[in-house]
């Protein structure tokens, strides 16, 4: 079986997004951050210790802040009067273009942390790159997001190591989490983002080594998020997130 046959993409017939369009690109990254923020928001009052609850909440707020800045900018680029809430609350599952990784459920703490770590390592590369772009709004957002991403990465990589090299139970759970989430990693480096991959791989290898984890071997990858071809989790997430606005449209909150 060729390597290509192991990458599951959006099926024939699904329209491809126009990656050259700045609006589409900005919205995709906004969607990533909103969805991660929402997932972390589900954990509030459920964390293993009070200090962890606070840290996750702060991280959720950071991601939400980035999402809001990006949505606002996207709306301005589009010029059709859509603001952050129109974009977040009134786009359907098929219009959301977040990475599949971000919509995966929290599961146990190992799943939450591995998901966060893989995403943080990606955002570190992404914002480092974008901080140097000519578009001042984007580079400004990226600079701030980069500072936060470094902080998030330190937290999540620290926990990957604690869990990977903690007890036998924590090692097993972390190994399973990595195995389940690995198939959503190739998607991060599609198209122009391919250049971010080597930096990401270096971070992930170093941390996995320190955590006594091995890079999962299964070559299978699932992509499609950037085309709105999601896993079955996103619909449920949006149903909850968008419910108030959809039930009571056109009101001020």
């Amino acid at each position: 079986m060729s390597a290509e046959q192991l990458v599951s993409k959006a099926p024939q017939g699904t329209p491809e997004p126009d990656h050259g369009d700045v609006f589409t690109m900005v919205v995709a990254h906004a969607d990533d951050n909103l969805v991660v923020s929402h997932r972390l928001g589900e954990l509030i009052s459920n964390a293993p210790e009070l200090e962890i609850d606070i840290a996750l909440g702060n991280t959720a707020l950071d991601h939400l802040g980035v999402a809001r800045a990006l949505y606002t900018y996207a709306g301005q680029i589009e010029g059709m009067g859509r603001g952050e809430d129109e974009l977040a609350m009134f786009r359907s599952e098929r219009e959301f273009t977040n990475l599949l990784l971000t919509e995966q459920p929290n599961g146990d703490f190992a799943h939450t942390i591995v998901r966060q770590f893989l995403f943080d390592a990606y955002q570190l590369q992404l914002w480092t790159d974008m901080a140097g772009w000519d578009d001042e709004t984007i580079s400004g957002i990226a600079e701030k997001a980069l500072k936060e991403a470094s902080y998030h990465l330190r937290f999540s990589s620290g926990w990957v190591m604690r869990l990977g090299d903690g007890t036998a139970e924590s090692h097993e759970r972390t190994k399973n989490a990595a195995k389940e989430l690995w198939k959503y990693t190739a998607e991060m480096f599609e198209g122009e983002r391919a250049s971010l991959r080597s930096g990401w791989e270096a971070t992930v290898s170093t941390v996995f080594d320190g955590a006594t984890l091995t890079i999962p071997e299964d070559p299978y990858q699932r992509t499609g998020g950037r085309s709105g071809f999601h896993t079955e989790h996103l619909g449920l997430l949006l149903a909850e997130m968008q419910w108030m606005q959809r039930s009571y449209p056109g009101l001020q909150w």
Partner: protein
Amino acid sequence: MTYEVPVAPGETADIETSTDLSGESWPMWEVFVRARRGISHVHIGSLHAPDPETALENARDVYTRRGEGVSVWVVPSTELYAFEPDAAAEYVEANEKVYRLATTYDIPEEVGQM
């Protein structure tokens, strides 16, 4: 005050300290923060963490809301020694005084029975 909970008739306000604790708890750390250059570090409170890195991250999250330019020190509570001018007699007798009662003192029976 508002978060004071009254004792219902028939209930007792005395609490025995629970002995049924599962698992080891994380050690306690004292947190010192210097809000900006030019002033000294101030003791600001404590928290629980398994290691120094987590203690520092937690301290920054909780006590500084990750304020930039803020310096944070953490010290394991067991490593903090103190002189207390009005300390109760039983503490004066000990050779080394530690700031926090919880960790190293053998609290006299009546006091320890909470």
